[in-house]
């Protein structure tokens, strides 16, 4: 892969780790909806964030298909219309696959700025689906999750790339 000058070479990603992070993000979504925040409209969607992250960094492994499946599971959990989150995650996965070649050439804050329209598009799509199916507009705080997700992009980048940034030749002084 052609990479920008000065960027650290990464270790190969572990598929188990990717699966684990997606599961954890799903769990976090559930946790904040069931215990902390209730059905607050501004709660960020961690699963969407992690899915977009992997679709950009590992487009051959995670993409439209997995996004669709996890969207279906989210629909069942949230008791929403079956296919609503599946549709938004699918579109979001497609958009992420489309921009993955370009976006990694920028530094991380600019990347966050570039994924913001992507999250916003997904959120607006969900809103229009809801209103088409006869829902009510839940208030302007509904537009907050994409912004929060974009803000979390640098944090997620550090966390999810950490296993790949370990030393290639661990020894006594550098066990990790």
């Amino acid at each position: 892969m052609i990479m920008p000058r000065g960027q650290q070479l990464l270790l190969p990603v572990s598929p188990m780790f990717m699966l684990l992070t997606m599961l954890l993000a799903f769990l976090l979504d559930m946790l904040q909806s069931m215990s902390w925040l209730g059905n607050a409209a501004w709660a960020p969607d961690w699963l969407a964030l992690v899915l977009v992250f992997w679709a950009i960094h590992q487009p051959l492994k995670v993409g439209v298909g997995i996004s669709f499946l996890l969207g279906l599971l989210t629909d069942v959990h949230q008791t929403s219309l079956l296919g609503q989150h599946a549709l938004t995650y699918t579109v979001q996965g497609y958009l992420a696959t489309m921009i993955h070649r370009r976006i990694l050439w920028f530094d991380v804050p600019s990347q966050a700025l570039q994924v913001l329209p992507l999250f916003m598009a997904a959120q607006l799509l969900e809103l229009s689906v809801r209103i088409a199916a006869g829902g009510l507009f839940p208030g302007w705080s509904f537009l907050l999750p994409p912004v929060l997700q974009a803000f979390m992009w640098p944090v997620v980048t550090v966390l999810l790339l950490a296993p790949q940034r370990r030393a290639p030749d661990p020894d006594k002084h550098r066990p990790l």
Partner: protein
Amino acid sequence: MPLGSLDRTPPPFFKQGTSALTKLVLFSSLSCGLMFADLHYNIVQPARWALSLVVYPVQWLALRPQALWDQVDNVFESKQEALNAVEQAKAALLAQSVRASQVEQLTLENNHLRQLLALRERFSTKAMAAEVLYEAADPFVRKMILNKGATHGVQSSSPVMDDQGILGQVTRVHPLVSEITLVTDREHSIPVLNTRTGARGVAFGESGGAPLLELRYMATNADIEEGDVLTTSGVDGVYPPGIPVAKVVKIERRADTVFARILCESLARVQGARHVMVLEPVQFALPGLGDVPHAQQAVTQGAK
């Protein structure tokens, strides 16, 4: 640098799999089809059943921290709080004992009157205790998930109440859990009776931040006052009659409309209920009335 420290497998040149655009078209049309089917037909229910079984372990896991916290909280609940609770319970018992002593006399009187009128005995509804697992995360709807499902014998369209009044109705039954739509949901409507005047009406959910219902189609000059208590009227064949539903809190009478805008506050704790009762729908208890499994749907479709 040792082998394996870099991803050395070259990206495939020719076998790139299905293109992202194809997948996008395929999966979005699939989800649109699913949504359409879910909205208009009842055919995706099996898929929901299967997926709910997949999601259940994750949900169980996500509920653990809350359960642990509750336990810790219980242990450290102060003695004073417990004593206060006992005091309150005693006061409530005293207040109720007066009415309770009247009940026997009233039941007797009622029996006599019913026999006189040759009416059928009023049936007692079967009930099942359940616990609220969580509120649905969707900000557009007012729904709750109960910890009893089809395997425990929950039936679709069963009324659900807490100790204060009607909470909602079971709208989807999964194998291990079930979904209830609250009375405050916009899609929900419930036939009610004003206990002061005996006037019947239909109350619709408001889906707002506050636990409000709207009593629609009441004329501006109708006899209704703030503070009136609305109970289930029992004409729907789903809810047993006489269970409190809501209290009228605000009446707007405007000259330009025929109907008054009447807002009622739900009596059940729609925002903080933990322990609830799932009642058997009345139509199942009535002998020889035929099977009408989706009375609630007929009611909600009237709302649209």
